[in-house]
Every structure is written in C-alpha cells, then in structure tokens.
C-alpha cells in the first residue's frame, strides 16, 4: 500500500517543469527571433551579411519552419514528460540541421562555388540549446552503459549518412572540406595517432609510478608535486623547452632523427602531451589503490596470495574503475591539447585551426575544431560507459 504522501509527490512530479530545460527553451526562442540564422559571404574571406531565419528561406517555408521550431522550443521548455522533451529536442536538432542545409542550398546560385554560406550565431545557439536539453533528458533515463554507447553509435551513423548523402554540401564548412578532403583524412589519422602515442606511454609509465606512490608514501608527495608543476607549464612554453634538447639529440644521433625526433614536429608534441597525461594517470592509480579496504588486502594475503597476486587480482582489480577514470581524463584532455601540436608542425586537426586563423577563414577553423570536439565527446561517452561497466560494486 502506498502512503498518501508518495501519491502526492508523484502527482507533483507530473506537473514539475525542468528549470534548465525551461531556460534553454526560452533561449532557443529568443535566438530564433533576434539572432541571425545564417551568414552569407560573397567569398571565403569576405565579411558576411547576417540573415534572420525569415530572410534565409522563401517566406512561407521560413514562417512554417520558424513556427515549428518555436513550438518545439516552447514545448521542451514547459513539458513535464522527460520522454516527450527528449523527442521534441531531437526533432528540433534535426529540423535545425535540415533548415540550415536547405537555406544554404537555396541561397547558393546554381553553379557558384565562390559564395560561402555558413550557419549564423542563432543557429549555433539553437543547436546547443536543443542539444543540451536532449542530453539532459537522456541522462534522466539512466541508460545502461551499453545503451549509451548504442545511442552514440546511432547518432554517429545518422550524421555520417547525412554527410555522405551530401545533405550539408552547400554549407561553407563542407565547401572547405571538399577542398581539403585528402588532407582531412591525413590530419584526422595524425590527430588520433598523436593522442594514442602520448596516451599509451603515459599509461605504461604512469600506472607503475602510481603503484609506487601507493606503496611508498614518502615519495608520493614529491612525485605528485613534480607532475603538478609540469601541468602548470603552458604547452607552448613546454614545446619551447623541449625544442632545444630534442634538436640536439637529432643533431647528435642521425638514427634518432630518422626515427622522427626533431626539435619541432610530432616528437616534442607527443612528449609534452605525455608529460601532461602523467598526473591524472599517476594520481588516479594511487588514489584508486588507496581506496581498497585494508581488510580486503589482509584477507588476500592471509589466504596465501603472493604479493603480485594481491596487487593484480585484488588491489588493481578494485582500483581499475578509478584508474580508467584517470585514463578517460587524459584521453579527452589530449584530444583537445593535440590541436596545439599543429603550431610546431605536429599535424592533426589543429592544422586547419591555425591555417584558418592565419587566413581569417572561420570555416577552416571550424573544420578543425568541430571534429576535435566530436571526437573528445565520443571518447568520453565510451570510456564513461566502460568505467560504469567496471563498477561491479556500488561505490
């Protein structure tokens, strides 16, 4: 039998609106009305002319789309049903994307490859607002880890299909992509390689150092403080610091130079990222091991496990979720930081970013920045799911 108060609270919940979604929904409506939806430039580096949604499409279509988007935004703001809010936000996302693609198509004179049509500030605000409402609603469902990865895979597949199908081809970013398609694939591979080349050694070196910190508390403070200090060095400065010794090594040992060790390029970038990655790995390993209950370790020893068995089968196994959390931090952090590597010729998506800045071609900047963000986000979702799967016991 349920108590009256339980009934009341469930009734109350049905009429409850989510304050975050309400705020985001209102922001979405405001941006529809006041912010430019699209920017038209006569050429790649010309300054653009902003257009409201109403001027971006034929009047009837613009009015219809604008009304639907406003209704969806208002609905997400005030509905109490998480399921409906999610559906409306997803519908809003898809409609925004299709509208901007359609507007780009409509505003591009046939055969003109010089004019550039890019999404305006209002579009981005709409996209972010609907995106946040959708992810916020998704987290309410507390999906199982495997389901979260499935949702991500679906979203990626859908986006891939849209890009492959040429839905967004008229947009300026895709124009930049079309010009740079070969380099894009190469820089993407380079970006991932740089991330992995710094992450793997960081794990291989960091985990044993973390174990050392746990076993020998005397060295713990010194090691963590050193790693903390490294974190505070700006990446550009670190590149500079590494440049001199690496150049010297390359000059002294031709073999090293052949293997790719130079004062600039990938080598200093990988080393710098490796150094930044050490702190989260070492700290989380040491914290994770420290959280294992002493009585569990005592029992393991008392039953005749060797020191190595105690370490791997008990301590490490129990600390694994925390260690993986550290690796997740490093992975996401490195995906972002690798962008800087382009400054010293390390390659990666950063190449487009810095080239775009140099040419004041914002579309080129976005061509580097958006995939970086998408990659970091996807990796975060996958690793979070992995950590949750590892947590076989409640925290």
């Amino acid at each position, binding site marked *: 039998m349920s108590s009256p108060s339980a009934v009341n609270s469930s009734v109350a919940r049905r009429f409850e609106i989510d304050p975050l979604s309400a705020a985001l929904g209102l922001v979405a409506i405001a941006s529809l009305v006041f912010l430019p939806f699209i920017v038209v430039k006569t050429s790649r580096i010309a300054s653009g002319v902003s257009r409201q949604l109403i001027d971006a499409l034929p009047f009837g279509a613009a009015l219809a789309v604008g009304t639907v988007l406003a209704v969806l935004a208002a609905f997400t703001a005030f509905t109490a049903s998480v399921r409906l809010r999610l559906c409306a936000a997803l519908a809003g996302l898809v409609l925004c994307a299709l509208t901007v693609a359609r507007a780009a198509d409509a505003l591009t004179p046939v055969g003109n490859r010089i004019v550039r049509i890019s999404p305006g500030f209002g579009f981005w605000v709409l996209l972010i607002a609907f995106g946040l409402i959708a992810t916020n609603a998704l987290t309410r469902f507390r999906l199982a880890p495997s389901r979260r990865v499935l949702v991500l895979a679906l979203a990626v597949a859908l986006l891939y299909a849209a890009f492959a199908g040429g839905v967004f081809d008229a947009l300026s970013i895709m124009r930049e992509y079309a010009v740079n398609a070969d380099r894009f694939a190469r820089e993407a591979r380079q970006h991932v390689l740089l991330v992995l080349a710094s992450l793997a050694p960081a794990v291989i070196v960091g985990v044993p150092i973390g174990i050392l910190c746990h076993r020998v508390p005397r060295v713990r403070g010194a090691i963590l403080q050193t790693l903390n200090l490294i974190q505070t060095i700006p990446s550009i400065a670190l590149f500079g610091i590494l440049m001199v010794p690496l150049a010297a090594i390359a000059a002294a040992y031709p073999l090293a130079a052949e293997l790719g060790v130079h004062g600039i390029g990938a080598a200093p970038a990988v080393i710098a990222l490796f150094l930044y990655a050490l702190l989260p790995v070492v700290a989380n390993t040491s914290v994770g091991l420290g959280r294992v209950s002493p009585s569990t370790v005592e029992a393991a020893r008392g039953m*005749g496990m060797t020191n190595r068995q105690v370490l791997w089968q008990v301590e490490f196994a*129990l600390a694994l979720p925390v260690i993986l959390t550290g690796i997740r931090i490093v992975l996401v952090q490195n995906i972002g930081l690798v962008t800087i590597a382009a400054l010293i010729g390390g390659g990666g998506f950063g190449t487009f970013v810095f080239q775009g800045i140099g040419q004041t071609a914002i579309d080129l900047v976005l061509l580097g920045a958006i995939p970086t963000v998408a990659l970091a986000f996807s990796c975060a979702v996958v690793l979070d799911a992995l950590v949750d799967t590892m947590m076989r016991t409640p925290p």
Partner: protein
Amino acid sequence: MIEIESLTKQYGATTVVDGVSMSIESGSLTVIVGTSGSGKSTLLRMINKLIEPTSGRVSIDGRDTATTPAYLLRRKIGYVIQGHGLFPHRTVAENIGTVPKLLGWERARVRARVDELLKIFQLDPQEYAGKFPYQLSGGQQQRVGVARALAAEPALLLMDEPFGALDPIIRAKAQDDLLEIQRRFGTTVVLVTHDMDEAFRLGSRVAVMDRGRVLQYDRPTLLLTHPSDPFVSRLTGTADRALRLLSLISAGEAAVPGGAAEATAAEGPTVQADTSLRDVLCDLLWRGAASAVVVNADGTPAGRLTVGGILAHGRPD
C-alpha cells in the same frame, strides 16, 4: 599440533609479544583472549607469518614454519578476520573458491566444493553462488568468510575477532555453527577475541594475554577456579564467576544416577544432557522446582539433578 616457542615480536623499542610459548593440541578450539593491545592478534598472525617474529619459532605438526614460504604456508591455513574481508569485486562462489584456485584445483572440483560449503552454511547455491558480497546480510557475509577459509580443507583455522561485527543474536548462531563445524571436520581452531563470554563459550582451552605475555593457558574451568594472576580474575570477572563455572558444565556430566525412569511432573522438568548447569538452574528457579530429570539426546535417561547438587558445582574445589 602447533608448538610455539619463546615467540617475540618487537617494533623498535616496543615489545608487542614477549616470549610466548604454548602448544596447541590438534583438533582443539583454542581461544586467545585479552584486552586490545595485549598482543593477541600479533601472536595469531605470527602463526601464518602475516607478521614475521623477531625471535622464537612456530612449528606445525613438527615442521618449523620458517622453512616454508609464507604464501604456501597460508594456503594450508584457513584465515578469518573481523568484517569478513570478502573481495567486493568477486561473487560468493569466486570468493569461496579463492584458495582452491590458488592451489590449482580443477574447475569442476572447485565448483563442487563451493556448492558443498554453501549448503553446510545454509546458503542455497542456486541463489547465492552468483551474488556479490554487498548483496548479502552481515551474518551471511560472515558465513561466506568462514566458508572461504575452510574451502581447501585446512587442518588449521585462524580466526581474528571473527564475530566482532555481528549483532548478539547472529553472533550466537555463528558461534554455534563454528562449534558444529569444528566437531564435524576436526579442524584445529585458534580464535582471538576480547570477549570473555565468547572465550568461555567456545574455548576448550583459553589463553589469557596481557602486555604481550600469556598469563595463563588452561581449561576454562581452571581459569575460574585457579586463576594464576590477579589480572586473570579481573578479566574473567569475580562477580558472576560461580554462574560462569556452572555454564561450563553440562547437565549430563553432573547428573546423579537413579530415579529417572519413573520421572513425573512432580519431580520437575526434563532437561537435555547437553544443557549447561547454569541454564538448568535458571529453569528450576523460574519454575520453583527443586530437581530436574536429565535425558540423553536419544531419549534414554541420564539421571537427575537437584538444586543442591547443581550449587555444589559452582564452588572451587
């Protein structure tokens, strides 16, 4: 048979265990009792070499434990600690199978042994084998902890305050289970506790420790009737020592032959032979009866008991 010879443990200038010598009979349940800091846990942990002694030696069945690598020695000795120490990331079955797996048993044999132990500890294998420790009650966790220690059929079981975290009712049940298992398998048990009642209830021999030394190592009755040291009588308590003494003697041992065959209600209640004299006395006081009839477990008469007869057992002789 465990021989402990002038075993000493020092940490810097502090002597935690000070020249302890004692021998523990095979198949006995020996309790080491003392206040906290008396060195009782350290003494226990030196038996399975979780702590290396500063000097002295321990031999089990004639073999000096110093000659065996510690981890191999421990696989042959069951070990139970307070708060069970179960592996939170492993299922009940995996926990119980730990030592057999370390010893390289075949998987089928491990599984059969796990099922057997779960049944002995009244846990349905179907239901409990796949559960994780956090899904069990405190009493169940403790039982799994003991089952895990017994998995590889050790001849010796060391228990460090094994029931300390349990509430009184579950603790009494766990103590009964331990006595039952010890009778059934003939395991030699060495148990450390600070609880005098537990020591008297479980121990066939009790060692009283204080400041690293064993003050007295004797049968429980002798600790009460002939304490060797003022500390021993302080620890055992003087206020209710007569009743404690009665609780150590069973009705069967104290029964006087005769009169039982024609037991009637007028002669008082009928009591089982394994009931303690303390419980019989309480029963008689409660009923206002002067005597009781004692019967064996199979129903055959074992004799009678009078209040006077019982009281005579509550005096040091």
